[in-house]
């Protein structure tokens, strides 16, 4: 099967999945709770409540509501966020930028640590480093991130008072322009060292907290992949050429072990995306995650729907890309199952 056909087929399935997700999400909000509860208060007479329901088109049959909602989404109208007191589409990009900055930073931490640890362990299978790595990995996967974050805060913020919370020092943040919305980048663009430090300083703890779990995923995969590769003939063949163990490991085994490791990047991405919710709550990071938690607790379902839909689409796309990249990288893989 040609790579092109494979991509095409995946691209064809994508919209079906997205529509499916949108239906699921929409049904959810109509099954329980109240899509408009946030706008109601007890001073309202029943007629007033009806009025609000009309404002949000809740008086129409469900499928009409769905179509209208979907139409809005397609036209870039994601509805109005009661929590943010603004159209979702106004606030979303800002929040997204903040979240992405955090997620990407964490992702980098995870990739670096994960691959290093994984190689370290895989190359020394069943030796001490391997066991240590395994414990790190498993514990990373079992660690309640919100708790880990709180522990770090207890130590570095509450007790030692050296770590900040939030995303920035408001005054410094206000002192520079924000073309990209990514604080670190903006700081560099503005050429302000103080701002850059402020950004990094606020980023470190959350990124570490979030990155730890992801590190576990990658390290685990990397390890098993490497162990797998090290048992392949070509490794012995490379040794038979007289290559140094270092080169055998780096140039041959690890290089190939990275290929299957690519596949978990999609998984890791989802993991990071989820992680931002609690991490942002704990570190008061003004991103999508915390906004979402707010919306959930205050029952702002319009925002919630957009968020779930958006993250799912993002998740799907990333996974698609990952698969394609993987298909490209691995000469052995046969496409389409």
């Amino acid at each position, binding site marked *: 099967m040609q790579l092109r056909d494979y991509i095409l087929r995946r691209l064809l399935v994508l919209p079906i999945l997205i529509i499916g997700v949108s239906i699921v999400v929409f049904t959810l909000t109509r099954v329980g709770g109240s899509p408009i509860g946030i706008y109601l208060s007890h001073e309202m007479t029943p007629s007033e409540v009806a009025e609000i329901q009309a404002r949000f088109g809740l008086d129409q049959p469900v499928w009409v509501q769905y179509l209208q909602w979907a139409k809005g989404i397609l036209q870039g109208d994601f509805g109005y966020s009661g*929590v943010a007191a603004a159209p979702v589409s106004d606030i979303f990009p800002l929040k997204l930028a903040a979240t992405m900055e955090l997620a990407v930073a964490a992702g980098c931490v995870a990739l670096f640590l994960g691959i290093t640890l994984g190689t370290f362990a895989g190359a020394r299978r069943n030796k001490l480093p391997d066991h240590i790595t395994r414990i790190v990995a498993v514990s990373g996967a079992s660690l309640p991130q919100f708790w880990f974050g709180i522990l770090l805060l207890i130590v570095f913020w509450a007790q030692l008072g050296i770590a900040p919370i939030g995303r920035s020092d408001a005054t410094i943040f206000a002192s520079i322009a924000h073309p990209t919305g990514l604080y670190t980048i903006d700081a560099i663009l503005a050429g302000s060292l103080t701002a850059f430090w402020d950004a990094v300083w606020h980023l470190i703890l959350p990124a570490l907290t979030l990155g730890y779990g992801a590190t576990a995923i990658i390290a685990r995969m990397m390890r098993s992949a490497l162990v797998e590769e090290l048992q392949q003939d070509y490794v012995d063949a490379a040794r038979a050429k007289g290559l140094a163990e270092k080169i055998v490991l780096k140039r041959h085994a690890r290089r190939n072990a990275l290929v299957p490791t690519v596949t978990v990047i999609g998984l890791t991405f989802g993991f990071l995306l989820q992680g931002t919710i609690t991490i942002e709550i704990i570190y008061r990071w003004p991103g999508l995650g915390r906004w979402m938690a707010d919306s959930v607790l205050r029952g702002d379902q319009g925002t919630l729907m957009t968020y779930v839909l958006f993250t799912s689409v993002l998740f799907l796309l990333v996974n698609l890309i990952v698969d394609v990249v993987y298909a490209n990288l691995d000469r052995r893989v046969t496409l389409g199952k």
Partner: protein
Amino acid sequence: MTTIKWRNHLTAALVGGALAFALPLDATAQVNNPGLLVHAADDEPTTLDPAQVEPGEGGETVILQVYDRLLDFGSDSPELIPSLAVEVPSVDNGGISADGLTYTFKLREGVTFHDGTAFSADDVKYSWDRAIEMDLPEGNAGALADVIASSEVVDDMTFSVTLNDPSASFLNSVVTAMVASVVSQDAVEANGGIEAGVPNQYMAGNMVGTGPYKFVTWNRNENLQLEVNDNYWGDNAKLDVRIEIGGDPDVRVLGLRAGEFDTIETDPSFVADIEGADGVTIFKGGLLLEPLHIGMNLNIPEGSLPPEDTISEDFFHDPRIRQAFNHAFDYEAFLNGPLAGYGEFNPHYVPIGLFGHDASAPVYNKQNAAEAERLFREAGVWDEGFSVSVITEEGNLFALMCLVLKDSLERLNPKFRINVLAVAESVFDDAHASNPLEYAMWAKNADPAADPNFYLNAYAHPDGEWGEVHGFGNGYRDAAKIAGLIDSAAIELDPAKRAATYAEIQRELYEDPMWIIGAQEGIVMAHRSWLEGFAMQPLWPRPSLKFSLFDK
């Protein structure tokens, strides 16, 4: 009595503080970010539009600073003072017509809005009409619409209103309400104008007023910034303001101790953490006019109760059961636990510190298990017991109040079960707004007001807001009597007579309570000691601060 309790608690808290880790915080004397006042707020506004804001909601905090009203409360007394109107209308100065129906306001010259346009009577009429015309259900337009028959612009600087009926509370509960704030006509017209029933998205996220502060920016979930309005008609504010939004109470506490914040909103229960921190002053005094209460529904639709509830629909029709609940509630636990000792108990249903409150009226302020048991037995529910659900917003004082109720009754008799449904704010509002109400009990606080009539109408009158929803008529021993008393007091213009009537009502309602009043929450405010001119006025919306008065 409560004060002694409070001291015990305080010492306990101090011991606790000593046992807890010492925090390395710089309580240095020098002032952090001079020229800027950082206020850590509890919740985020859902709108900045006076016509849309819901009483007691976060937006009012900001509206108070940026918009002006015709009249206002001074910082030290509940007396009305001029604001955009140059004098407080009264019969003597001809501001109020003899029949008490027409009010005339002389307006202040030379006031300009933040957008540079000049302020005139048109703006006042426009602002009020706007609120009434938009009539947003979430907003408080009713406050104006219900009492105002008509309003007119007499001349550029004179504005007059005619009421449907004479009202003793028009000036201090309507004119001063946030919904009566004066907005810039041009600004609104330039941004969508008025559309009945539809919120104005521009006004919801921006502000153009005449107040001491200009609106700068609102970073959702983060902060909201205001800057000094240099050509304010009154004394200029001294400090720019940044309102830090969200975060847990103890984040604010630490921020205050660290000097990041100058003023914070926090539950009384966190005061123990600030007590004794250097550089921090705790302002205690007075009580909020928002009694924390639990409603008892006498108007439950057939079969609408949650499945786990075993009570009959007419459960609360029996006054003995309502009394029993009032006797069973562990007031001290609530006051000393969640409220950390900051609060008082007020009679049904007039808050302390308000005209008409009778200090000698009987009050439910002590758990009386024996009496409760006696009444429950009389009512015949003691032996087989019952199970009832109480719905409330999760994660705040109300939820804690419900937990206290739960513990109080379940410890009184294991056969009693109270299911606390602590739900999302929206879910609660949804249930709370429905009429008839499909739960037997719910917990929240009263809306603040400056006049007893408001409370009695809303929370005691058989035909009042809640009287109707909860069907007080089904329960009062003598509904007509209570209705009569409240109505007569409402239009009584002689204070002495009025007070006497209210005293009688309070006694009546003790025998026939329609609420369980957990407590009237005490005002506690913590701020950096470097803050000068700190003042609070409970009649201002939460946190009852005017930043323009402060300096540091």
